[in-house]
């Protein structure tokens, strides 16, 4: 790097070569300064750049700024979009789109195939069978081809799901172990990335995916939601209804810690998983031991979630 001036009142062009020395190759350093630099206060940079000889004129300065800012921002965007958790988010959303589209198109394909072939079955399985047929004539060719597209989309969805299954543990080892790769990837996608998931309070994580219910609650129209997408977790779903509030709160708390460990340290932390197992055992013991809760939270199962959801608006 050719940075010669890192003081807090230098412009992005500090250390850049003069306007007339063309072949110096300081482009990367200048772009890096646009992305990473800072200053306490703005100044008349165009004027200062001309004074320092970086640019021959204000117009020349703006030309150089345009080239550098477009290139720097393009690089920064690419880098941010390539970050692994962002790739995971893309994969989750693509998988969801493929699934939704495949199902929708399967209905159309089945309806059409049903009018042409006696034994056509509905759904994606049905579309796969239709796609195997030998078409006869123009209309059959189109209907069979459409069914083929449905089968292809479903295959793409399955391939994406496998990729997610493989990628999620690499992106977030603790979260994926605790939640399973599928739910871990969904949580990351809902939050928009691992970092933003790690920065959310556990009450927010608890109701991720239940935004409609949460806003209904905040507007005073409904009780607070007990759980969002984490409902799919065995710890919540297989806990008896009156304890699900506690279960989802305990799970969300540990998931949040797992996301933080994954984002900030990236190492596997066994104690986290043990603590959750113990806590869940305690909650489930209530089902055997009568209605008396013995958890540290006082054992309420529905009212106590309200406190967790505050501050999520």
């Amino acid at each position, binding site marked *: 790097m050719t940075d010669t001036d890192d003081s807090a009142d230098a412009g992005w062009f500090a250390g850049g070569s003069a306007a007339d020395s063309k072949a110096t190759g300081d482009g990367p350093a200048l772009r890096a300064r646009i992305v990473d630099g800072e200053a306490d206060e*703005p100044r008349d*940079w165009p004027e200062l750049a001309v004074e320092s000889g970086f640019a021959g004129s204000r117009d020349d300065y703006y030309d150089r700024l345009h080239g550098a*800012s477009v290139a720097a921002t393009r690089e*920064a965007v690419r880098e941010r979009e390539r970050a692994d958790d962002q790739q995971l988010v893309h994969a989750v959303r693509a998988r969801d789109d493929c699934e939704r589209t495949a199902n929708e198109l399967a209905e159309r394909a089945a309806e059409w195939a049903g009018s042409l072939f006696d034994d056509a079955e509905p759904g994606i399985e049905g579309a796969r069978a239709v796609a195997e047929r030998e078409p006869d004539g123009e209309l059959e060719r189109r209907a069979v081809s459409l069914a083929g597209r449905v089968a292809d989309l479903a295959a793409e969805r399955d391939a994406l799901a496998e990729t997610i299954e493989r990628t999620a543990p690499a992106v977030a080892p603790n979260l994926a172990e605790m939640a399973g790769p599928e739910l871990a990837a969904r949580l990351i996608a809902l939050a928009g990335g691992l970092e933003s998931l790690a920065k959310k309070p556990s009450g927010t994580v608890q109701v991720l995916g239940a935004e409609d219910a949460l806003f209904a609650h905040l*507007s005073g129209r409904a009780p607070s939601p007990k759980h969002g997408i984490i409902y799919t977790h065995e710890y919540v779903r297989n806990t008896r209804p009156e304890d699900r509030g506690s279960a989802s709160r305990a799970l969300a708390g540990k998931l949040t810690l797992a996301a933080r460990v994954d984002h900030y340290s990236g190492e596997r932390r066994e104690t986290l998983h043990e603590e959750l197992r113990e806590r869940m055992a305690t909650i489930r013991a209530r089902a055997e031991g009568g209605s008396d809760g013995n958890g540290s939270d006082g054992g309420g199962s529905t009212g106590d979630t309200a406190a967790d959801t505050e501050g999520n608006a």
Partner: protein
Amino acid sequence: MSDPELPAGVERREIDGETELTTRGPPVYGEPTADGWRAWDPDRSKLGGMFELGFETGLSGGETVLYLGAASGTTVSHVADFAGPTYAVEFAPRPARDLVEAAEPRDRLFPLLKDARTPNRYAHVVESDVDAIVQDVATRGQAEVAVRNARFLADDGRLLLAIKARSEDVTTDPESVFEGALDRLREAYEILETGRLDRFHEDHLGVVATPR
């Protein structure tokens, strides 16, 4: 239609049989065009809405502009068409990808992947004494963002701000959200004009202000 001065470079022209706000420049988002002029849809742009509603923006064309919350570049591309040097700040990578594409053919539009809440991260690029700040950020603390960025604005410059009530608080009614935001704004700005943008953007308040 109320038509106070539109800036030079913004014209009402007939496109596809409709009279629309237009600017002249390369198309960005599939908007209708005619003779090199492209339609500026007030339903998709808070600033376009403010022009349609007759706000006195103080813009006459050729200004130096800092645009906060540039998103995909829809509005800022129109701004760069009629203004002078235009700095476009956007925080999210995905829309910024489109913003870069909009900026590439506009030689006085400078895209920056930055968070408008931390102005010191771009104060080494954005010059001082800009003529106008246009702000359309959909995060909590919109007035706070405007206050923190006041340092860029010339003493007689204009802040053109769209406040989205739902970004501040979904449960409180918009009027009280706006009042709270204006109170915060007054710590750094004198409010010149306010008006609801509801004809084009539900629960948004348009604000024109100048530094105190």
